[in-house]
């Protein structure tokens, strides 16, 4: 089969996006399609440019992992006007009347809500909590904050004593947690909006001899597997980006074969809560594909 699949992705630094692209590439190879990918370095303006650049090559489908939900609309619009079908992954276009064939994603609000609910149960429904946010204003930050807030409504005993941003960065999370622990010696748990930040928080706690501090994250990165086993961190919500990437290409193939109508509009993938109890049932590659295996 002859054809070109184009993908525009927010960045190629986060393992999440790397795995998603790996999944896409693998599926495209399997289907014998050419695969072009552009990474926007977390710049939504830049990403619109890249979408335009990809469209110049008239691909058969555009797989679109937008930098944020608001910017997504413009990319979709551009693709629509070029007559290229769009498969949105991870970020759903929030406005505009653009058409997408399907939206494949983790329900981030739900993932955060479930994770926090689990965490609050571990805390016995009361105690001090700190939240480490991702880059402020980014969709993942907004949705995960929202999910945690929803969980908090059911747990009046949980007191949020500190909210800081660590910009998805482990080292920044380390510093922020040091400071939070200084000001809040009674702190019991940290909700990191990503695994990297959960790890940074846990390492800061360990350094401050607070091994009892609970720390959870979202992503299910390979690095979390050992960390959970060792008790450094307690849980993570594993997403399935590799699989999402493969699905996106498979859907694209369906469109090319004229079977586009059979694709559901919304394909939420459940995130899996990984804790010490079930960690041995999974492999990192279940979530992040072969790339993850190399990283463990």
């Amino acid at each position, binding site marked *: 089969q002859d054809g070109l699949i184009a993908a525009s992705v927010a960045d190629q630094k986060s393992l999440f996006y790397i795995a998603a692209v790996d999944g896409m590439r693998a599926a495209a190879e399997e289907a014998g399609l050419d695969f072009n990918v552009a990474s926007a370095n977390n710049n939504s303006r830049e990403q*619109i440019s890249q979408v*335009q*650049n990809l469209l110049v090559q008239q691909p058969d489908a555009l797989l679109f992992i937008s930098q944020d939900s608001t910017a997504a*609309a413009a990319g979709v619009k551009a693709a629509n006007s070029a007559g290229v079908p769009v498969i949105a992954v991870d970020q759903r276009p929030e406005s505009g009347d653009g058409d997408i064939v399907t939206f494949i994603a983790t329900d981030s609000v739900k993932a955060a809500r479930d994770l926090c609910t689990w965490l609050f149960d571990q805390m016995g429904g009361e105690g001090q909590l700190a939240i480490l946010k991702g880059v402020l204003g980014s969709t993942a930050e907004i949705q995960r904050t929202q999910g945690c807030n929803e969980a908090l409504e059911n747990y009046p005993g949980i007191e949020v004593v500190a909210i800081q941003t660590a910009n998805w960065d482990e080292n920044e999370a380390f510093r922020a947690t040091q400071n939070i622990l200084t000001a809040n010696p009674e702190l019991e748990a940290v909700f990191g909006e990503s695994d990297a930040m959960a790890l940074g928080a846990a390492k800061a706690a360990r350094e401050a001899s607070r091994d009892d501090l609970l720390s959870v994250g979202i992503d299910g990165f390979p690095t979390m597997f050992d960390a959970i086993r060792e008790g450094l961190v307690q849980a993570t919500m594993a997403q399935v980006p590799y699989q999402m990437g493969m699905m996106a290409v498979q859907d694209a193939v369906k469109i090319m074969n004229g079977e586009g109508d059979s694709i559901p509009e919304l394909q939420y993938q459940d995130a899996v809560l990984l804790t010490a109890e079930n960690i041995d049932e999974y492999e990192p590659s279940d979530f992040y594909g072969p790339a993850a295996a190399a990283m463990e």
Partner: protein
Amino acid sequence: MGRQGNAMSHAKSNTDESVKAGRNSEAPTGSERLAALGGSVLRQVPGPLIGLIAVCIAFSWMSPYFLTERNLINIFSQISEIGIMAVGAALVILIGGIDLSVGAVVALSLMVNAWLYRDFGVPFVFSSLVGLGVGALVGLVNGVLSTYGRVQPFVATLATMSACSGLALYVTNGGPVTGFPDWFTGLASLRIFGLPFESLLMVGIFLIVAWWLTFRPTGRSLYAIGGSEEVARLSGINTRAVKILVYVIAGLLAAVASLVLGARLDSAHPTAGISDLLSVIAVVVIGGASLAGGSGGMLGTFIGLLIIGVLRNGMALLNVSPNLQPVVIGIAIIIAVMLDRKTAN
């Protein structure tokens, strides 16, 4: 520090007249006139033009899409906001300053605009004007701090950058705003003579500012101030007023860029534009301006803009691996700049 190699070599290659045209010599000969003309044309062709041409040739050879009309239009529309911001940044750099707040001003003025429009029902035209006003105001603060306040421009604009990016998040507590009026978002797809409106706007701004810098006394004084503020002051230029004006223009242009961005994305995001800072300054400097001030101009900046725009576009067309793209871009920038040096010698 690296003054323009261009101006330097220029100086070197043209001195015969100063030797020949002694007191006794008559009016300049024809060949001397020609040489002078050649000199002044050379002076007009600044920055790494050769580099740009080389890059373009390479890409049109490597990708069949590069020279298509659609792609060329894309390139132009893709560089619009950066270009508009770069005009302001170039002016600031010309007077020997720097403006780190340019990206954050984009975010703040866009958010204030969208917030007034959505949450207070302010008519969009007015909320946009307020957005522009915010940009100008931040520029004013930058200008006043770095003149009367005697704070280094780097520090002053670092502070306003920080403050603006925080405020941009604060107005809507980090949430994005979507849904601008249709006539406004329509501007993003408006074509005039087949050219995108936003690109024409950018080119228009470049032309007006180039005209100002070349033909208006105030504009011309920017070179004097950048060359030596004391010399400019003693020559009767109100250097403080001009400097403040320049920062205000830079802020205003950033706000204009925010409108272009808002129309294109049909949304306002509190981090919009923030990561463009380095690209904006890079465009100006690649175009031949020196951060020491006093050299550079609109033509050079435009060439710098095209170099960055073409490089990014071409990489995407060629499907270079995303991790390697920055490597290739880094190398290409150096080659583009060095090509120019070599030929200038």
